[in-house]
């Protein structure tokens, strides 16, 4: 689906044009906004890729979106703008709920005006969420970051995860910054982590958790970092430490035992992370993505135990669904950095 970025407008005329847009719209539409959602991307197709995504998100989460497509390498400095609204009928007989989108094309030196462009067009008093698509810039600009309430990234899109996590730490440590951090790659794992945790509510599984000796994760091509974050979460929650001196790294449990791990790529995988098997001595806990439907199947098998199986919801893999999931949860992620630390030496390994 393609959705147009809308009406081309002069940058200095955006507010007036938005006002006109609403004064001319029919009475069956109402503007709504819960958040200022700024998307910054240097991808040449950012406008085409993000406009349909914003349209989809607007069905569930009202916003004012500022979509910024930047071309820092362009020689000529230029700023162009478009406005549009994404309207959805959520309930028959009710008004359509509309979210605004302001799109900017910033070329060349004009990219440096990003903070000015953003701050001039925010919906007053609503939180500012900045979704930075692709690699973060070194030397982050404090003028921008100090006002960001939530920084959204997708570490899976980074070219150099180890270096990017360093920049991310720098951004978070900027004085007065109030940003909460959301890595969509971490959000992708929420329901999978939940499904794994649910198995260990079973006493027979919980009592074996400190005997964990093997983890195998099957993921789709391009989702190694997602699988690594899942591994890092398990390791950090169980107090296991990576022993990466050998060619075949392992985790050391607090009791000194060894946990081997394997990340397998399935070229035909239907989900980012397709399954996780956790060896617990004589028992196995597994979570597998169901082929049909948005569900995981969690299972636990152990000698002299009735087999356990439970279906639990799975995250949908579409980016708009992942982002919606993050927008609706609005919490901090205290386990994120411990999970990254647990697997950090593996980030630069192939």
């Amino acid at each position: 689906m393609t959705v147009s970025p809308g009406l081309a407008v002069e940058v200095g005329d955006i507010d007036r044009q938005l006002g006109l847009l609403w004064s001319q719209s029919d009475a069956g539409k109402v503007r709504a906004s819960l958040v200022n959602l700024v998307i910054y991307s240097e991808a040449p197709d950012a406008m085409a890729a993000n406009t349909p995504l914003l349209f989809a998100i607007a069905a569930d989460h009202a916003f004012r979106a500022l979509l910024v497509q930047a071309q820092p390498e362009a020689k000529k400095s230029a700023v162009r703008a478009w406005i549009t609204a994404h309207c959805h009928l959520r309930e028959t007989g009710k008004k359509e709920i509309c979210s605004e989108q302001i799109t900017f094309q910033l070329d060349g030196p004009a990219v440096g005006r990003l903070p000015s462009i953003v701050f001039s067009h925010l919906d007053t008093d609503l939180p500012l969420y900045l979704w930075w698509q692709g690699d973060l810039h070194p030397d982050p600009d404090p003028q921008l970051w100090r006002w960001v309430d939530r920084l959204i990234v997708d570490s899976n899109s980074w070219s150099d995860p180890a270096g990017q996590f360093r920049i991310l730490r720098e951004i978070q440590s900027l004085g007065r910054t109030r940003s909460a951090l959301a890595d969509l790659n971490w959000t992708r794992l929420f329901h999978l982590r939940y499904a794994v945790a649910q198995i260990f509510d079973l006493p027979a599984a919980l009592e074996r958790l400190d005997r964990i000796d093997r983890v195998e994760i099957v993921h789709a091509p391009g989702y190694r970092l997602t699988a690594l974050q899942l591994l890092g979460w398990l390791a950090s929650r169980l107090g296991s430490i990576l022993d990466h001196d050998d060619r075949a790294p392992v985790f050391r449990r607090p009791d000194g035992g060894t946990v081997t791990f394997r990340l397998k790529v399935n070229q035909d995988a239907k989900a980012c992370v397709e399954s996780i098997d956790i060896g617990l001595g004589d028992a196995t806990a597994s979570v597998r993505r169901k082929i049909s439907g948005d569900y995981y199947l969690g299972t636990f098998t152990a000698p002299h135990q009735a087999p356990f199986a439970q279906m639990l919801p799975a995250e949908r893999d579409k980016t708009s669904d992942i982002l919606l999931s993050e927008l609706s949860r609005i919490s901090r992620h205290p386990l994120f950095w411990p999970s990254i630390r647990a697997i950090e030496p593996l980030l630069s390994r192939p």
Partner: protein
Amino acid sequence: MPETACENPLRFHLVNRPVPDPCIIVIFGATGDLTRRKLIPALYNLAADGNLPSSLAVVCFARREKTSESFRAELGEAARKYSRRPLNDELWTRFAANIFYHRSSFDQPAGYTSLGDELDAIDQRLGTRGNRLYYLASSPTEFDLILENLSASGLSSAKPGTWSRLIVEKPFGTDLPSAHRLNDAVAAAFPERDTFRIDHYLGKETAQNILVLRFANTVFEALWNRRYVDNVQITASEPLGVESRAGYYENSGALRDMVQNHLLQLLCLTAMEPPIDLGADAVRNEKVKVMQALRPLNGAAVAENVVRAQYTAGFINGQEVPGYRHEPGVAPESMVETYVALRLHIDNWRWAGVPFFMRVGKRLPKSGTEIAIQFRGTPPVLFNRESKLQDPNVLVIRIQPDEGISFRMAAKMPGAMLQIEPVKMDFHYGTSFGKATPEAYERLLLDAMSGDATLFARRDEVEHAWAFIDQIREAWQDDSAPRLDFYPAGSWGPRQADELLAPDHAVWRRL
């Protein structure tokens, strides 16, 4: 951030709510409508959202001849019809596999003995750990019998390390003596901390939001008192008539059907003091204090402060509808009220002198439940000097439908003249939060499984409410009591209800 009692380290910071324990839910009277329309769809939705514990079974206890297989099929059809989420066949099959039908009449001790054996066997098979949640969904006339048998069979007593809880559906009695009897019967089988009396209004998001609005915002609570509030109006109106409930309604009427539970609960949430914490007892202590502070109504006070009425034939949405006495199953000379309006006073420091008006009625023009806080007008200077502003500030909490909050204030109309008009700031749940709101029963079942009784009524709340309602009903029995008034279907109630507000210079809000 809560973790499970067994301290599963992987649970840490996954969800911001208690995780329910594995358990078996036993539904008494499971062949009734409540199970099909509400309970099973609610449990299925909890399963679809991943909110159920790792092990859960449902045992349906009823008299009719059925098998687990046939009953699962019936429930599957009902879930397909009434579930908030579309049914996923595989999820339903797995969920339904743990639904069992236990056939027994409520008065047969052997049925409870075999129930106990079945529950133990399920524990062994499914790992439900001996935890039991008994749900009384039968006719209230059967409650005593079920409770006695649960007690006599030992099923109501939790084994060490497990819990045994009871959910009771309303009505919690029909008057104070019957509520006492029911509560005594409950107390003989279950301690109060394990008793969960459901008032589904309390499970609604907007009812829960009353406390958030009041105590998570600075501006409202400062004004929430007799200095700034002129009156409070609580309305529950519906265009429907008595429908198929004539048998029940003829013995109940609007006062007992709606005011004793739902409306008084909304009143308590609106008027209560801030609790010391959000624990069940702290919240319910404050609600009880509101009940205790309600000015008693008896004799002449009822005549002055309560209006009862019954609908006659009229039009709803342009359609002609019959009067109450012509509805199927209603006695031709029925004196049952289908409408009640009350003026209440809460005699405490915060609310002294502020009237609380409540009205509930059938066959009113529109469906709506709301709480309106009407603020005092401005002093008669400046803009209010020449002519009194007609529309003082009003904060409206809409419970249903179109859940939300609106605030009416005065604004200058553009132009050279100084003309002041009311404008409305409006917050709609549906506009701001696109996500479908869970059904009240989903939240309440989850809370009962987690042992959180905050959204359930406590014994003393129920009894205080009945004591208050009974005095009105007793006054109505008196020969000198005002007669039953009548209002045409499709109107906003009888003229007498409007007159009720006149001494306070107030008028009912038009929804």
